[in-house]
């Protein structure tokens, strides 16, 4: 799965932000919020929150980058500065050569934005009306609009939803509707803020497949924030980790697993209760150890960068295996380990 994803998304961009002509360029970007807190009956204390604390990176045209980090790390704040919603407190920022907060409406023609938490569609109107309004608002040429809409309707399965008011759509349907809305005007950059949050497995797969094709076929630059490492695994060659407003890591996902020494979990159901399974690493692959045993079910940890297949084969050869599943490490755990690894 890993290898497939990396090959499939390798269409655009030739490096990890080493290109000089960065399409998105951040240099020491900062956002400081003044927060006033109650400190007594009338007295209020002012203090600063550095939501983004000096972030620099470059994204080349056609790259697809994952931007991850725990809650409150500064992901959304960065995206909001990249779209011009928020004005940076310091540092510099260019998207397609435009300073977002100074020329927000000009930039709007060239970017698409999808907020997982809220819709950009008109809540009480059918999808079709929202799209029609976008058509006029963005001054999309008629032919282009029809072509793009047809493509989105087909690939995102929106055909039967066009006449339904947005408030009646399910979360997954709404998300697909939102993604289509963000793409009608052929944006060069697409920002996705938690695009798969709360979606079921099928909707997630549909959305990922669509984004993958968009990136390959249209060369659209994609920057997505997510909590779901699977999104990154299947879509992005490059991942950036941010925490406390600082860039902690910028590189490949495999490298992140190495830095974070993260582990995946193999959950096996055996025919009967057995002592904890332990495999030593040998020439054919890495080892694995049981971290939890509950009757015939055992939780076995192994390095996230390793392939599960040989391990499963070895277990199946030695133990009476009934069923199994693989659990991906969550991002918080990876980052927590990263901290421990790099003091």
């Amino acid at each position, binding site marked *: 799965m890993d290898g497939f994803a990396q090959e499939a998304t390798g269409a655009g961009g030739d490096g990890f932000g080493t290109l000089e002509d960065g399409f998105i360029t951040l240099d020491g970007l900062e956002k400081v919020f003044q927060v006033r807190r109650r400190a007594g009956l009338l007295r209020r204390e002012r203090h600063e929150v550095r939501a983004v604390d000096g972030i620099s990176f470059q994204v080349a045209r056609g790259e697809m980058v994952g931007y991850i980090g725990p809650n409150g790390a500064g992901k959304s704040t960065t995206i909001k500065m990249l779209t011009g919603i928020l004005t940076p407190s310091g540092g510099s920022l260019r998207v397609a050569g435009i300073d977002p907060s100074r020329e927000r409406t000009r930039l709007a023609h060239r970017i698409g934005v999808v907020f997982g*938490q809220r819709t950009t569609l008109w809540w009480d109107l059918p999808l079709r009306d929202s799209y029609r309004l976008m058509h006029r608002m963005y001054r999309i040429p008629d032919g282009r609009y029809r072509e793009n809409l047809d493509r989105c309707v087909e690939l995102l399965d929106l055909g039967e939803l066009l006449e339904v008011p947005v408030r009646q759509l399910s979360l997954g349907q709404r998300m697909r509707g939102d993604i289509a809305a963000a793409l009608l005007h052929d944006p060069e950059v697409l920002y996705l803020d938690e695009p798969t949050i709360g979606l079921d497995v099928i909707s997630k797969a549909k959305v990922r497949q669509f984004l993958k094709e968009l990136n390959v076929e249209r060369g659209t630059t994609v920057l997505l924030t997510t909590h779901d490492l699977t999104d990154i695994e299947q879509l992005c060659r490059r991942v950036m980790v941010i925490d406390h407003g600082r860039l902690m890591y910028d590189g490949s996902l495999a490298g992140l697993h190495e830095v974070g020494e993260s582990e995946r979990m193999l959950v096996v159901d055996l025919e009967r209760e057995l002592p904890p399974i332990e495999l030593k690493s040998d020439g054919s692959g890495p080892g694995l150890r049981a971290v939890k045993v509950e009757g015939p079910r055992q939780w076995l940890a192994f390095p996230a960068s390793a392939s599960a297949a040989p391990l499963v084969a070895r277990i199946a050869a030695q133990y009476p295996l009934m069923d199994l599943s693989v659990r991906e490490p969550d991002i918080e755990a990876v980052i927590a380990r990263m901290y421990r690894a790099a003091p």
Partner: protein
Amino acid sequence: MAETVAVRSGEGQGPEPVGFAYEERPRLLEGLRAYGLIVAMWVRSTMAYRASFVMTTFGNLAVTAFDFLTIVLMFTHVDALGGYTLPEIALLYGVSATAFGLCDLLLGSMERLGRRVRDGTLDTLLVRPVPVLAQVAADRFALRRIGRVVQGLAVLVYALATLDIAWTPLKVAMLPVMVISGAAVFGAVFVCGAAFQFVAQDASQVQSAFTYGGATLLQYPPTIFAKDLVRGVTFVVPLAFVSWLPTLYVLDREYPLDLPQWVAFLSPVVAVAFGALAGLAWRAALRTYRSTGS
């Protein structure tokens, strides 16, 4: 800039040309166009439920009609209020109600801004390529609010039909001018109120005090109010220019605060100046927007 040009002509790295011609256009015109687009969409969607629209509009009309009926009832017991007769008050009322009704019809949705700022949904308006003010003003445009305009006009017609005015060309011209500049002054108050909602996010009631409160105030002659209040609405929030001064000119009545006669002609000037001021306030406020956590 060179890069932008390359992209537009399809020489970018993408396999297909990306983006299309985008020209810089005057913001005011862009705003009006966007306003028109959004309003047209809401009117279309309202008309999908025609019966419901007709009923709510009549409801709106009836409620505002009762408003004037209370004044009529009052006059069954007195002959004059603050030295003004019923038709004279009807003229004050008609001008103020029509001006406010027009403004409420066009900009009434701005009241909801505070909620958008609070819950962060303003974000979605900021990523669209048209001015945010136009989007906020046109959001959920409610055609039923036209009821108030109809009622105001009806009272105005009644006043003009019963009053015995020595008409001059200037007085005739004054009528539409004061209604329109009145609506503009109310509009500026709406925009200022909206700007204030960025700072104090549940301040829509403060705004209502000026808009609804102001409209009610102007429906009565200035002679019945305290001097300081009259001074306030003339010089601080220039609501007095909406109907009091121009209407008093049409009626050949004495001005409050011993103002000279020519100030009645200032109403369009005041409207434009106050509008520009409101625009600046809005810009400054939008820059302070901090969105929400996620």
